[in-house]
């Protein structure tokens, strides 16, 4: 496996509570990793630490071999903007922007001229089944459509890693399955890695590997063979 993102000996404490107690994890290109665990197990903390959102108290985070956990806030912010993509449960789309501009926003933030950014954003609509919805605002989209727009926004910058935090948490089962299938397949097609936090075993089953986390430690590591 050609490792894209790695966390070694990750420790994170909140006061007397240990959220991560020396976690080791690696994600490769086209690899998809689901992190599962009960509430308070440390799974979101692990995702946020790997994504450079939370700075670990111990251990290292490496992106293609380069340490990122010791970068300054501005460089981390730029890293998240340019080399990572994010999909959250809900509420990540700006309600006043049409779908295509929501998708184009990360490119514009990176300095891409608006016209080019929107053109590149539009290319994502057909593969994600969003044809014809380019001008709609988030409030005019269904939950599943909104999540697919969010996936497009995560992928439009051609990131190394896509982080998804309960991306189907607000969707019904059928829509969940459709969204996560798209998320994993399109991410893989792009050559990006996927790290996803979920509490839903059916959703996790779409990923190549599953990490079970409890009390800040990895308790189980299973691997699927995805057709």
């Amino acid at each position, binding site marked *: 496996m050609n490792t894209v993102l790695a966390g070694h000996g990750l420790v994170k404490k909140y006061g007397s509570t240990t959220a991560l107690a020396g976690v080791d994890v690696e994600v490769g290109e086209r690899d998809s990793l689901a992190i599962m665990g009960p509430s308070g197990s440390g799974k979101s903390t692990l995702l946020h630490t790997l994504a450079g959102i939370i700075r670990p108290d111990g251990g290292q985070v490496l992106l293609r071999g380069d340490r990122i956990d010791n970068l300054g806030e501005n460089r981390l912010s730029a890293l998240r903007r340019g080399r990572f993509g994010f999909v959250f449960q809900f509420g990540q789309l*700006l309600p006043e922007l049409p779908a295509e501009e929501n998708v184009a926003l990360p490119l514009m933030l990176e300095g891409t001229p608006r016209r080019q950014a929107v053109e590149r954003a539009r290319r994502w609509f057909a593969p994600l089944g969003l044809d014809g919805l380019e001008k709609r605002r988030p409030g005019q989209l269904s939950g599943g459509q909104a999540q697919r727009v969010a996936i497009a926004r995560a992928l439009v910058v051609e990131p190394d890693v896509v982080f998804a935090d309960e991306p189907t948490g607000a969707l019904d089962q059928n829509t969940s399955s459709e969204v996560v299938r798209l998320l994993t397949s399109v991410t893989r097609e792009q050559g990006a890695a996927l790290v996803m936090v979920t509490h839903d075993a059916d959703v996790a089953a779409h990923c190549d590997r599953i990490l079970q986390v409890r009390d800040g430690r990895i308790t189980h590591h299973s691997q699927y063979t995805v057709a």
Partner: protein
Amino acid sequence: MRSPVLPLTWHLARSSGRRGLQSQLLAAGAAAVGAFVMLVMIAACLGAGARADRTAWRTPDADRNGTAVQALATTYVRHEPLTVVSLAQLPGRPLTPAPPGLDAFPKKGEVYVSPALAALLHELPANQLADRFPRVRSYGTIGAAGLASPDELVAVVGRAPSEPAMSRTAAEGASYYDQDQAARAVVSGFSSAKRSLFTASDQAMTLIGVVLLAMPVVVLSAAAGRLGAARREQRLAALRLAGATPRQILAMTAVEAAAVGAAGALTGALAYVALLPALAAIPYGIGSWYTGQLWVGPAWLSAVVAAVTALITVSAVSMLRQVAASPLGVAQQANPRRTRWIRVVVFVVAVGCIFRSTGGGGQLTARQLIGLLVLFYGAFWLFGPWVVDRLGRIVGRFARRPATLLAARRLSDDPRGAWRTVSGLVLAGFAAGFFSVSQIGADTSQYRDQVAVITANAADARQAATEARTLLGRVGVTATVTVKGEDAYDSLLGGSPGVIAHVPGGTDRIDTAVTALTPLGTGHAPYSQDYATAYDRTVVDRIAEVSTATLALSFVVATASAGLTAAANVLDRRRVYGLLRLAGTPLRILDRARTRETVLPLAVLAGGTTAMGVYGSYQLNKAVGATIDTSGALQLLACVLIGALAMFAAIGGSRPLLRRVTADPARAAD
């Protein structure tokens, strides 16, 4: 069964957390500012009337069977008016009661002075001021009951009825320029309804200020009612889904908003009461105030608190109509709140009416002007959101940077909300445009360095000229004294016979000359250019003062409105801001977008209303035959600069809040 509304409202308010509390505190703060500003303006309006009433005794109602003669004269020292009331008990008549502020009717030779005049008498050489009055060993003091302001310069002089100062020729139209500055009457008391020239227009002017400030305060209160709207909508939509009736939802909202509004309004009222002494020190017209003059009384206090509370409550309830109508009202709010073309149609019709009224170069009547102003005012309230909507679309089409695009899309997404945010300063711009050029031009240069002395006829004038040269020489004033006949209308004498002394050297020399020439002439006090221009200057000064005060308070209200709305938007949109920042969006982009979504409509609309204010003011000036004061342009510039700075500061004030609410990306539970 006991209604669950109150306990549930209380429980939800208590459990709304720190951010819920922040919204409530902001709403209360807005209510406090609104109540405070309205109370200050009402206090100024009522106080101006009250203190004007205190000047009425100086021109008492005439009584043919009166017991005394009263003569009012006005003289100037250091360009400030000094009111001199001369009183003479008529022999063989019953004793006249004491005038307000005095313990007894003054005897001949007694001089009572206001505290401010006493200080000035002490400060200035006798030949500049004290020698205008009979020589006394000590001055009596006029009490507050006889004064409109602690700063007022007033003297009451006891005289004999036969003295020149008490004669008919000393007053009653002796000079073209008297215009309520001189009067004489036989009186039996001091009751009157006639206010002095220097206070008569005060109340009307402050009333204009109250009217102009009313709308920004309404906007501020409405903004306060909308603070935390998103949080409240989500919460109550959930309650609605849980089975609460629309009535219960509205009742809960009303109770919460009313409680917050009342707390804020009461705080504003308390601030007003606490700051009364400081407010009383702010000069207006004839000077500062007696604290009691600015006390509005419990009725007005209660009315303002109730009005602000009601406004906030109505605003909050109106925001929830959608939730109340449908449990899914919030979730279904997908379409942008578009403005309709009818707004621009109404605006065009209004502007058409205005141009039709003012076209052809004719002057407008006062009624037309008021109608025009109301039309401007109302038209912009309709037009504003439409302009914001179009502005958002145009800027959105051409925006190249993310911050500009975000700002533009937000403008066209909720143009009414954006309009409400900036409307206060837009209207302040209107006020600035209107008042800054409304300085009706009193010619202040024509009679500079002149002192006029009225005589009974031309022969007396020649004699007076000789005496004037002697008197002026005695006090070391070099002057050119000329004699004017009754046909010299274009002079400081305005057609009265007399002499004019040309006294170069500035204010001290003029004051010395006026003092030296006081014994001359018919008993009418010698006067300078200040006397001749007093009538116009009083109006000009009051407009300038009211415009400054209105502007200052408008900025206070508008800045508070903008700042609070900006903070409320941060709180209401904290999730999306937080997730954007988490995904790497720089905070400065979000901050720039927030600033631009306010600055863009402000720049366009404030410019528009300012131009309309200038135009309306131009018409007003034309109606009274006055010229526009070009120095008003500087005031306008200062207004725009202060407005821009205040706006940036107000929005910048919520930057730490934005940083704080987006700084905790790991708040999601594991």
